[in-house]
C-alpha cells in the first residue's frame, strides 16, 4: 500500500468512524427515550389508578 493510499484510506475511515459514532449516540438516545417513556407510562397508570 502506497503512502497516498494509506492517507486516502484514513480519510474515508475517519468519515466511517464518525458515522458509526453518530449511530451509536442516536441508539443510546433512543434507548434513553424508551426508558423515559416506560417510566412515564408507569407514572400515568399510577395517577389514573390503573
Amino acid at each position, binding site marked *: 500500500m502506497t503512502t497516498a493510499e494509506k*492517507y486516502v484510506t484514513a*480519510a474515508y475511515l475517519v468519515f466511517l468512524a464518525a458515522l458509526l459514532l453518530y449511530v451509536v449516540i*442516536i441508539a443510546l438516545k433512543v434507548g434513553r427515550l424508551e426508558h423515559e417513556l416506560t417510566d412515564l407510562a408507569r407514572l400515568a397508570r399510577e395517577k389514573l389508578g390503573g
Partner: protein
Amino acid sequence: MSTSSLSEDGRTGKAGPAFDFGVASGRRGASTLALAAAGLLVGGIALALYWAPEDADQGFSQKIFYLHVPVALTAYASFAWAAWKAFRLLSTRDSRYDLESYTAVHMGVIFGLLTLVTGSIWAKISWGHWWSWGERQLVLFLIVFLFYSAYFMLRYSTEPGPRRERNSAVYALFGVALIPVSFLAVRIAGTILHPTVFTHEGANLPWEMFLAFCVCLAGMLSLAGSLYLAELAGKRADVALRDLRELLA
C-alpha cells in the same frame, strides 16, 4: 391539555393527535433519505475510487476530494439551512423554527469538523503538513466552524424561552454571512496551495470526476438530511417527554 399549550419548542396549535410533534413524519423522512444516502454514497465512493481517472498532478491522493468537498459543501448547506430557519423564526415568531435551526447548526458543526479532519489529511499528503495558517480558505473555514461552535455556548448560557430563541436565531443568521466569504476566499485570494476546482467558468475537472463528485455530493446531502430529521425527531420527542413529565408531576 392541548398541544399548543406545550409548545416551548414550537409545535403549533393546529389540530392533530396530542403529542404528535412530527416525530413519526420525521422518522419516515429520515428513513427514506438514509436509504438514498446509503445508495448514493456507496455508489459515489465506488465511482470515485474505481472508475474516475486519477488526477495527473496529485495521483491517488486526490481521491480525498470526493469526500472532503461534499462534506464541506454539506456543512455550508447546514449552516445556510440553520440561517433560513432562524430567519423564519424571527419573521414569524413561530418557535418551532428554533429547534430546527439549532438542529441544523448541530449538523453543520459535525460536518464542519469532518471537513477540517479530512482536509488536514489531504493537506498532509499534498503539502507535507497538516495545516497552513497562510491559507485564507482554511483559516476562514476554521473561523466559520469556531463561530458556530460558540453558538452552543450562547444558546445554553440563557434560560429556555423566547429570549434564547431570538438570540440563537440572530446568531445563526449573522453567521451565514461568513459562508460566502469563506467560500469565495480561495478565489479572491488567488492562493497557491489550496486548489480551486469550481470557478465561474464551470467545473475544472473531467466529466467522469465531476459525475462521481455529484453522486458523492448528493449522497452527503441526503445523509445530512436524514441525520437532521432523525436528530430533530429525537429532540422533539425529548421535549414532548419533558412536557409530559411536567404534566404528570
